[in-house]
């Protein structure tokens, strides 16, 4: 018989390395036609980091995403970066980019302020213009600004900067301290059906609501959540490396089961409205938190459906059925 169940799990997850310094450096150059180049030492691992980092640079410079070309991944050319790890790229590398772009922008403000008869701190960069705060019609295009700055004043618009999240060492005896500068939060709820005669678990739907601060690119955050949930589903129900006397017996994709398109349920994904003032334009991060609460939500749903508490992952049909039968035996013995 198929029994329906629902289960929730919430979580918290930090951004960056535990206490240890994990800086990022960035360089931003603005071209004489108002387009720009961003140099970052991170490597695109598929999550869309280069697009997001380009958006952050564009925003700071008052440009559109398409105006910024992102160069990455070459130790001869790009500055150091601690890497795309610990969900730190948007926050740490992003903050480095904001600072670098601000430096390049400041050069443009200094060079163009005399042209507009204002002081540099009266200027802002928006919609591809350098314009006066509170009086935007007084403006000069960023392209013209760069040309003036580079060819007349003699100051090319370039900026380099670094960022490292401030932390406080953890006490060696008690662990008390401030290991991270910011955290993200999330809740996932799973709707499952458990066949109490075979132990098979079918996930009908998962709802996920995540906090990532400001979503720099909502489409990419959704992708991270959906992908993270698929890793969570595999962790919960299918994946396991099996050993025999120290040798892996299933080092292949035939016998290491992971989610296919048929294993994934309908996903309903949402973002909490939040803004972190310490992050670039309020952003925090999204890469890892997405894979954290899924297994717990599914286990709680199984418990809701058939009243068994799975304490060892993965919850294969065998394990679930075993737990169901044990529960039935206990009930019969008691009753």
């Amino acid at each position, binding site marked *: 018989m198929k029994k329906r169940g629902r*289960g929730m799990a919430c979580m918290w997850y930090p951004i960056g390395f535990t206490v240890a310094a994990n800086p990022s450096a960035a360089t931003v150059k603005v071209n004489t036609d108002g387009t720009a180049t961003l140099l970052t030492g991170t490597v695109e691992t598929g999550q869309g980091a280069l697009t997001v980092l380009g958006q952050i640079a564009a925003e700071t410079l008052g440009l559109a995403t398409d105006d910024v070309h992102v160069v990455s991944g*070459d130790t001869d050319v790009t500055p150091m970066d601690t890497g795309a790890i610990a969900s730190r790229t948007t926050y740490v590398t992003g903050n480095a980019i904001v600072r670098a772009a601000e430096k390049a922008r400041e050069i443009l403000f200094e060079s163009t302020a005399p042209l507009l008869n204002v002081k540099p701190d009266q200027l802002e960069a928006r919609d591809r213009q350098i314009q006066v705060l509170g009086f935007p019609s007084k403006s000069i295009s960023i392209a013209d600004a760069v040309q003036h700055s580079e060819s007349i004043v003699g100051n090319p618009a370039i900026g380099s900067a670094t960022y490292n999240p401030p932390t406080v060492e953890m006490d060696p005896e008690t662990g008390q301290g401030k290991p991270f500068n910011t955290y993200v939060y999330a809740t996932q709820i799973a709707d499952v059906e458990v066949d109490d005669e075979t132990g098979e678990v079918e996930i009908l739907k998962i709802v996920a609501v995540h906090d990532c601060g400001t979503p720099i690119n909502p*489409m990419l955050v959704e992708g991270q959540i959906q992908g993270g949930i698929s890793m969570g589903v595999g962790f919960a129900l299918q994946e396991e490396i099996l050993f025999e006397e120290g040798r892996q017996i299933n080092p292949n994709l035939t016998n*290491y089961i992971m989610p296919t398109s048929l294993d994934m349920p309908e996903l309903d994904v949402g973002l909490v409205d939040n803004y972190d003032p310490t992050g670039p334009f309020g952003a925090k991060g999204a890469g*890892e938190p997405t894979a954290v609460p899924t297994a717990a939500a599914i286990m709680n749903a199984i418990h809701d459906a058939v009243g068994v508490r799975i304490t060892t992952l*993965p919850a294969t049909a065998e394990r679930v059925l075993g737990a169901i039968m044990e529960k039935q035996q206990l009930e019969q013995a008691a009753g």
Partner: protein
Amino acid sequence: MATRNKDIQQKTEELITVEESKAPAQQPLAIPTDNPVAYPLELPQGEARLRTPAVGQRARRPDGRLHGLGQTQYIDDITFPHMLHAKILRSKYPHARIVSIDTSEAEKMPGVMATLTGAEIPENSFGPTYQDQPVLAYPIARHCGDGVAAVAATSEQLATEALEKIKVEYEPLPAVFDPLEALEKDSPKVHGGDTNIYTSKVIKKGDVEKALKESEHVFHRQFRTQMVEHVPLEPHASIASWDGNGRVTLWTSLGRITLGREDLSRTLKMPQSKIRLIGTVVGGNFGGKNEITTEPVLALLSKKSRRPVKLVFTRGDEFISSTIRHPFVMDYTTGVNNDGKILARKIRLVLDGGSYCSWTGTTIGKGSILAPGPYDIENILVEAFAVYTNKTTTGAMRGFGAPQVCFAYESQMDDIAHKLGLDPLEIRLRNGFSENSLSPTSQTLQSVALKESLAQAAERFGWKERQS
């Protein structure tokens, strides 16, 4: 001058005339009539990329265009002239002393251009926290995925055949596989010494024993998680090549090229300015491509053979020799009041730390801090240990211990709710972090959105409408 030129011209003509008789038969070349790789050049990439402000736009990814066209160049799509292919021989035993390695038979094979063993590596150790991991194991192999020798040959097939000709004499050593066994005094020691515990962490706040005694209910459960692998669709891949100035370039699927360059500088004993790492688009990382694997091996094979050398992991290599997620054994003891308020939480975490440290330091740190869950708890004790075992190296994998501890703390939360007759949503809202809550390490938390995520998820799901 003119005379000498005429001389050379005459000699060339003589040579051509003689050689004409050896010329191959003329065959007309088929001229392609269609473009086999046509693609559009100037199609726009959506309006969102053109809008200001840039933050918040659902901007398309320029690399997405290349992915869809099949134009993205992953490492295995790159070839160089005279490039060789490398393969690595892995340990026959999960724990063994390598008594001798004889590569002479492999070296004799035509097409085999270089071999390498651990003894030849200038500095045979690396690791982000402890440098306890060898590039090629020597003299001790500590898991079945430990590389023991490498060859570079003119084809992958040849390299694989050459591996079979390498003679390794092993002295098997007692091995330990279970992390709880590895904790015991008399267990085999993976790295020698008198304990397999190589890193530990304590988080202590308040008085957990007193608070547990004062709790109206105490819940205890042990939870366990399994070994899983990242399974990036793109296997690890790298190419190494040297130039005449003694500079080595590596094209690599490594996700952390700054660190990679430092590690290469260390293991090859070379200045960083002579090393260049190029990371192209990686076909999935998830934590498994965050440290060097074969790069120093390829650099040395390339140095020996004076040719570019490429190595791409087989899917089998991915499983047995790249890193995996730490299995956790978690003991949770939680004291609550009748109204479901958590007063105390005591946690013991044992991490199966695999054969080498890798990213265990980060995992145990994060795992310990996150273990009590996102809840206001005044009395906390977390004790965590990582032990060596003779199994695959456990390293960084998406979440660094968080998925494991979340499974434990959220499962127990529902156990508590169930026992006390409370709604799982209600008990979480009652205990969950708010703005300015104190974390387990007494950090004041800001920009907290836990309860918002709970409330919104519950509403989206229709939690209140569904009865258990």
